[in-house]
């Protein structure tokens, strides 16, 4: 009886109503067509990646005469940009995807924890600044930002990672995650003689780790796909995404599209695998969070 009651309260809103209506058929078809274009394009790119260069130029729509899986090995040998081979570019992609979210979320967790669980002078001011920055768009400071990076020696240097330190007060999502952790855990640890740092690192941080890991994965994917930051600020540290763009510019008319596609599809593997592995966490964070209303 009790179980039944719990089940009823957990039933999500919207799960009522007839399934097959003109609306559901039309919108369902539209979504299906959209999915077909998405997967169709990727499938076409995959089939193209198995063709020879001339074969692709002659006929981009036919199936490959001979399935040249060797193109994937050739991609490793031939793809290069700014003098960097594919291994160097994948290496750059790795540190440019792992370190920024780690720095961002660690500093964000530090600040957000304090914002969520401590009272101190200036806290309200920080809140007001966070709200101001969210609602008041300040545009066109790209030039000043670029100059600042040059002045601080961050341009074309791994020091560019300093820009990934979280903004004032951390992030609203992380603050909400810490607010969701009961203060009684911390109080019990304080009674046992733990200090503020011990409580944060040993008790509160592990409790918020689920949300932090989901956010880390999302940021990792976003950094992996980022091509603009390296183009603008890290010309000597070309990651694979930027490398693909530069390779196309460098080869121009001699571009080997099947090899390019082979390299491109390899770039897709990392984010897609990560998304597939953590999709539940992604969905919980996305559909469970958001704006109240």
């Amino acid at each position, binding site marked *: 009886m009790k179980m039944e009651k719990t089940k009823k309260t957990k039933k999500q*809103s*919207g*799960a*009522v*109503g007839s*399934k*097959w*209506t003109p609306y*559901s058929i039309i*919108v*369902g078809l*539209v979504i299906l067509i*959209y999915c077909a274009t998405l997967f169709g*394009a990727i499938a*076409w*790119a995959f089939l193209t990646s198995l063709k020879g260069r001339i074969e692709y*130029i002659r006929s*981009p*729509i036919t199936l490959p005469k001979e399935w040249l899986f060797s193109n994937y090995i050739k991609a490793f040998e031939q793809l290069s940009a700014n003098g960097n081979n594919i291994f160097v570019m994948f290496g750059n992609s790795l540190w440019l995807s792992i370190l920024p979210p780690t720095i961002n979320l660690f*500093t964000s967790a530090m*600040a957000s924890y*304090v914002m969520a669980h*401590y*009272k*101190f*002078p200036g806290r309200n001011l*920080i809140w007001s600044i966070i709200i101001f920055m969210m*609602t*008041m768009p*300040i*545009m066109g400071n*790209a*030039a*000043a*930002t670029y100059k*600042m990076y040059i002045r*601080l020696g961050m341009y074309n240097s791994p020091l560019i990672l300093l820009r990934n*330190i979280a*903004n004032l*007060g951390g992030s609203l999502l992380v603050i909400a995650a810490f607010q969701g952790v009961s203060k009684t855990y911390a109080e019990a640890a304080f009674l046992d003689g733990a*200090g*503020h740092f011990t409580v944060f690192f040993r008790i509160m941080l592990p409790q918020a780790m689920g949300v932090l890991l989901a956010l880390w994965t999302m940021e990792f994917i976003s950094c*992996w796909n980022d*091509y*603009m930051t390296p183009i603008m600020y890290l010309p000597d540290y070309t990651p694979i*995404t930027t490398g*693909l763009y530069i390779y*196309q510019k460098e080869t121009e008319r001699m571009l080997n599209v099947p090899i390019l596609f082979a390299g*491109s599809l390899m*770039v*897709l593997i990392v*984010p*897609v695998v990560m*998304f597939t592995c953590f*999709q539940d966490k992604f*969905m919980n964070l996305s*559909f*469970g969070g958001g*704006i109240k*209303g």
Partner: protein
Amino acid sequence: MREDTKNKIKKYFERYHDYPKPLRKGKYVFIFCMLILTVLRWAIFYVAVNIDSFTMAFKEFTGYGPNNESIYQWSFANFRLFWSEMTYQGWAAQSFKAALKNTLFLFVAGNAVTIPTTYLISYYLYKKMPGTKHFIWILYLPSVLSSVVMVTIFRNIVEVNGLVSALSIAMGKGAVTDLLISEKTAKWMVWCYNTWMGFPGAYVLVTAALKRIPEEIIESAQLDGVTPKTEFFKILFPLIWPTVQVLLLQKVTAILSADGPILLLTGGSADTYTIGFWYYDQVILSHSYEYPSAVGLLMTLVIAPIALIVKKLTDKVESY
């Protein structure tokens, strides 16, 4: 007098006593250590950068000094240049005017598709209609896939020797000229790509908001024989208004940054300059800093009040 001040300070800090006495001493050191990095980051990359951006807007480069250093003078030259560019009767494809026109086109044409699809898809997923379980994560994919890869695929589909052209030849209609080179079609190709990748819109936020609506409200409405149209517009939409409000605000503040991957798609050719690309061209390629800062200041002066008005208006709708 001193005692009085001490007491006042003591009283002031008393309101922040949220921990037992032995922990109070270390508390402020702890808070300082935890916040200092984010405060510094904010001070350097927000406050200092924006102050610098503001002052640069009023500077004019006048030449080089004896030690080869750049010399500037305070002036309104950047604003005058902006005014002359905006009132110029001819047409320059790489001007801010052209960038503004193209950005507004992409904003309006893009949202004309993504705003309706956001709500149509969200309602579909909320109602758990056929395929929801799979669609919910497939529709998330565009935000996971790399722009460089998807643009590479898209370019090779629409380029002169690409898939579209090959299909057209196969159907006996002849080759399709490069859709990304012609000024007539390139902008629409950018729109096509943006729509393709942005089709589901903010469906995650809207569906999440719909899912938080108590089921009893919907059940009682259905008992009263409500139609799906009335259910959505008269019941669900007002209940998710705070989410809609935030999305509207996001849209307004992003009016001038609606561009898409211009660098990858067209490299700014064929009349596809957008504001984002114009900034890239000015700052990174041309190393011009003062004029873009002045334009940025003007854009802020236009967008900030609009954002505030939209917020006020949407607040009014909510209270109404």
